[in-house]
């Protein structure tokens, strides 16, 4: 048997950002918890994200103890776990769908499911499945550079690290050095969730990060309306929307046209980027 060839070449994330940049717009990066409300529903929801205008997809791995997440994503994690979601199941979904979707997929996960599998095994399976990047919420570059980044790098899977408002210059540099594809700026010192307003200093904060980082900077945490997307897109290379989409899935889980509703919502969120 010939060795399996990795289907998405390294650089798919960089290419996606470059493509957006040529169109002089920010990338739109929606987040969903894989397996919420069911593993069967996920493929259609991912298609809806792409149809609505996703440039990169952040696919959340449900975890029993999501310490960085607010109530909305906690509930989604619980639903996904109850529905049998797991890292194995999600890798299967990516393997079946990555090519069809045509946009890079970043796994957004807590470290323990990755650790439990063994980082080398995980990196190999992620690469084989077509995963383009991995972000572990509770794995700072201090630990990640030693433990995970080399294994991912060997398999040509991008490592993405978080930068926070509390990150010192040294920490920003460390996250940037450990990342490829893009860095993720957490716009709020808080758990994930929707908020009425963006923080007033966001523009200054993002610029502070952009001055030190060569990679594209995506901004997330607390962004949920088209107006907020538009505002963030003025200063960032990418805009991440999570909780509000997760809430839409929650509120419409029983509706037969759930995927269509999601696509419509993503379309509304991406509209300001296409003007």
């Amino acid at each position, binding site marked *: 048997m010939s060795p399996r060839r990795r289907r998405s070449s390294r650089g798919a994330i960089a290419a996606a950002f470059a493509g957006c940049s040529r169109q002089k717009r920010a990338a739109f990066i929606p987040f969903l918890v894989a397996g919420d409300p069911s593993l069967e529903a996920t493929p259609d929801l991912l298609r809806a994200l792409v149809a609505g205008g996703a440039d990169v997809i952040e696919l959340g791995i449900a975890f029993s103890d999501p*310490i960085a997440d607010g109530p909305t994503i906690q509930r989604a994690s619980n639903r996904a776990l109850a529905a049998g979601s797991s890292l*194995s199941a999600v890798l299967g979904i990516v393997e079946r769908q990555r090519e069809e979707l045509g946009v890079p997929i970043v796994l957004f996960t807590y*470290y323990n499911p990755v650790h*439990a599998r063994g980082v080398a095994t995980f990196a190999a399976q992620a690469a084989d499945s077509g995963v383009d990047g991995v972000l572990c919420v509770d794995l700072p570059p201090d630990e990640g550079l030693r433990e995970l980044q080399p294994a991912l790098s060997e398999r040509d899977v991008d490592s993405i690290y978080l930068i926070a408002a509390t990150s010192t210059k040294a920490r920003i540099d460390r996250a940037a050095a450990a990342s490829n594809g893009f860095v993720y700026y957490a716009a709020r010192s808080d758990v994930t969730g929707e908020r009425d307003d963006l923080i007033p200093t966001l523009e200054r904060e993002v610029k502070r990060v952009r001055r030190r980082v060569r990679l594209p900077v995506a901004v997330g945490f607390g962004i949920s309306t088209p107006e907020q997307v538009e505002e963030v897109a003025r200063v960032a290379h990418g805009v991440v929307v999570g909780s509000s989409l997760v809430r839409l899935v929650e509120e419409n889980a029983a509706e037969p046209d759930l995927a269509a509703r999601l696509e419509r919502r993503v379309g509304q969120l991406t509209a300001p980027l296409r003007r």
Partner: protein
Amino acid sequence: MTSRDRVRTPLSAAAMEPDEGGRYGVYGGRYAPETLMAPLEELSRAWDRLRRKRAFQRRLRHLLEHYVGRPTPLYFAERLTEHLGGARIYLKREDLLHTGAHKINNALGQVLLAKEMGKTRIIAETGAGQHGVATATAAALLGLDCVVYMGEEDMRRQRLNVYRMQLLGAEVAAVDAGSRTLKDAINEAFRDWVASFADTHYVLGTVTGPEPYPRMVRQFHSVIGSEARRQLKRQTGAADPDVAIACVGGGSNAMGLFSAFLDRPDVLLVGVEAGGRGPDLGDHAARFSGGTLGVLHGARTLVLQDEEGQVVGTHSVSAGLDYPAVGPEHVFLHEHGQIEFTSATDREAIEGFHLLSAMEGILPALESAHAIAEVTKRAPGMDPDQVIMVNLSGRGDKDVESVLEYDAAPGVE
């Protein structure tokens, strides 16, 4: 006393120190969301500054003596010794401390530290309620606001402690996520802290969590072991027991006792985990028999989890031991042959509770009753000139209702 056998080869002091990243060998570390990394670095720096500062240590010692009630007695349990017919049993009476458990040593230390750091608000998690009560007490004493996160299931089991915390001026925040026990309370405390660290200190209640918590909490409890050694020497002429026993949830009372004996080759150190209803995953909290290496609550350590890395539910009759992970230093010391781990079932712990109550007139906390259960297994096989020292980490008043419930309908094992 007869000459003793060497029971282990201690590690050098340097080998036992965590590295800069808070790692004990491959355990420990600082696995936290980026937002918390700067606050954790700030905490490490503040702790390293203050632990060497005489004024801070003096203030803490003063409060421990005049407010908390240190030193606690080391008590020779004569009737229990006679009853079991073997080793002489000494109880380190942490149950006699203000608020009823060892937890106040750490809570007071951390709240003092928080005050020095200029924080005005304290948060904590609690399982059995002892750490919550201790933290609420320290916050009241030092005039800081306090919120304690507690799982709903634990609030039911420990409703008197809930009211105690409220009487002390703390807000008790119910956690209805997950298993509604200690681990979920810790999750919720971290979530609070991510948004509140500017004015808030998180008083983590055991020797786990990200650096610097394991070493800081251990240091605050090390007074248990250093006192006990001095006291045993005074009472028997020899400072080292043959065996030192402590229950292990996160492992703070055990680390406090064991820290004084880690460099003593002839002291056998035994940690007792919650065996719960039995050995099936989900029925116990025995990480050393059922756990695998994982990362939870900021530390790499043994975790009760499934193959997909999802943390599984635990069970123990004792809320304070009902936790799926254990302090990383324990795992490191176990790997190097320094600490032995065993477990006691719910039933054995309840029997230990009854035995100590009837024999010595001391109601132990159900957590500490697990250590008593190990004493009953071990003492009869030892010589009368040998000594077992056991950390009676807390008192059992809070558990009377749980024991009553258990005795009315004993669990199946």
